[in-house]
């Protein structure tokens, strides 16, 4: 059946491309079609999707009626077993303790509802130092793993130091939003002044070499070449390749500059792109296994929260 299907495809291509030919074509085109069709094999993309266990290192849940079931549905479709979910505070929001507690409560609720699918990640605002430290104790005590922050404070702001030191002790990673930044060389006008940029990660990673930082969503609209080149020597900064901009070069470039052990699979709600661009990248299956699952699981292992 497969051979018949290939022969039919071959015949179709030959007829189709000959009908587009100019009067310059010769008989030799017939032979060309035979040779080239032999090379167009079959690729079962869903078999590839099923082949790899996955942890989505950058996922969210929302204050909406359809969440988290919508996220679970996409994860099922892409065979993503585990999602690391957070609900960071809206950019530009007051960012007060009531707000970050409510965000963390949402995450806790979702984890309790789907304990076999979600790993909960907390959020806070270091502008409220005492409350943030209390919140860390609460959330980690409830089983959350790691931190996700948006842009209330730059990651290398001294306000963050106590938080970072705490997460070093906890051996947990901190996922930090990155803006569009200097995509067009100058800082984008839409970005707030305290948005974290690659250079901020370099600075804080140098100050705290024992900490683990996760640079958010290389495919999320920032200049990913600039990011990877800036971060290449900051060995305690991981990058996730989540985001809607599935530019063809991102994953290969990240592996080239950061190494295969520092690149993390993530979707940030762009599930097709998250899986698709890792499948499309020039990687071995062993590298894909690392990026889809093992790299993040090694991070979780440091705090004893790894996935079996």
């Amino acid at each position, binding site marked *: 059946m497969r051979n018949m299907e290939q022969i039919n495809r071959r015949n179709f291509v030959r007829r189709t491309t000959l009908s587009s030919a100019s009067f310059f074509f010769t008989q030799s085109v017939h032979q060309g079609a035979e040779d080239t069709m032999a090379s167009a094999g079959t690729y079962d993309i869903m078999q590839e999707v099923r082949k790899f266990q996955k942890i989505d290192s950058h996922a969210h849940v929302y204050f909406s009626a359809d969440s988290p079931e919508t996220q679970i549905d996409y994860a099922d479709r892409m065979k993503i077993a585990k999602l690391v979910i957070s609900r960071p505070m809206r950019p530009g929001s007051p960012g007060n303790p009531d707000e970050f507690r409510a965000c963390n409560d949402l995450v806790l609720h979702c984890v309790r509802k789907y304990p076999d699918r979600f790993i909960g990640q907390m959020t806070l605002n270091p502008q409220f130092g005492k409350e943030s430290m209390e919140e860390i104790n609460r959330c980690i005590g409830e089983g959350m793993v790691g931190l996700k922050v948006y842009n209330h404070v730059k990651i290398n702001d001294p306000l963050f130091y106590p938080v970072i030191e705490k997460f070093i002790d906890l051996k947990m990673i901190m996922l930090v939003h990155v803006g569009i930044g200097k995509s067009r060389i100058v800082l984008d006008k839409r970005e707030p002044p305290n948005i974290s940029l690659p250079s901020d990660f370099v600075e804080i990673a140098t100050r705290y070499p024992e900490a683990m930082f996760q640079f958010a969503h290389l495919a999320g609209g920032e200049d990913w070449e600039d990011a990877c080149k800036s971060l290449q020597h900051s060995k305690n900064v991981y990058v996730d390749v989540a985001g809607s901009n599935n530019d063809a070069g991102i994953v*290969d470039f990240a592996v080239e500059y950061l190494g295969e052990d520092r690149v993390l699979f993530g979707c940030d709600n762009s599930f097709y792109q998250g899986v*698709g661009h890792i499948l499309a990248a020039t990687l071995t299956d062993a590298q894909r296994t690392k990026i889809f699952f093992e790299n993040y699981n090694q991070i979780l292992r440091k705090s004893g929260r790894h996935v079996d």
Partner: protein
Amino acid sequence: MLIDCNAYIGHWPFRIRKYGSCAALLSRMNQFGVDLALVSSLSACFYKNTQTANQTLYDEIHSQRIFRDRFLLMAVINPIYGGWRDDLEICHRKFGIRGIKLYPKYHGYDPTGPECTELIKIARDRDLVIAFSLRMVDSRPSSWLDINEEWDLKDLIPVIRTVPHARYLIQNVSNRIDLEDGDSQVLRDASVLMDTSGRSITNLGFLIKTYGPGKFVFGTHSPVLDYCTGLLRIESLRQEEADETVREKIRSGNARQLFNL
């Protein structure tokens, strides 16, 4: 069978594109089981005289049998540049193009203006497909020299209303895709197909239900976007969203109908 209805060959001036040659694209096609690709010149986006880019691509495709057998050419026409009617004639009669690709934002013209309208009508009369991309690249990480404007789906409705009986292909469906009822009906009634490469195709099952199974074609937007995501949107459809007949339409059947293959 897989027919990629959205691929490019050529140079992008702001970032290296690894798969921008015929040989490199063909290697992708072979790796991922794609039989045919409708290709246009990526470089032509930035040329005022697009015909030089069309000629370059035609020459590259015809430099080897293996390219001629697997690539079908779409020409980029700039309807506000001198000699464009002659360019179209050459592309149609000599190059054997299947359609034309238009870049109003890059070339600086109104897609509902008299020049573009005339071009679309001629293409319609010659049974050529007219293709637009809602965007070429994500403007956020792009160069300061690149354009900053992108389209929403609704922005192309006036074009379709102006020449309703042409055959359209909307590529890289990004940004907003919600339409008012009247515009939605225009999309349904006209011969308009959308490829699966764009980031706004988040729920293809719902879109098939909304617009029908004949409205979508497989596309990659290679070499700009990765080669697998457009295919993943199709192959991850559940049985209740799209049976094998519908999936095969999207993989190749709708493209065959659109391009008279």
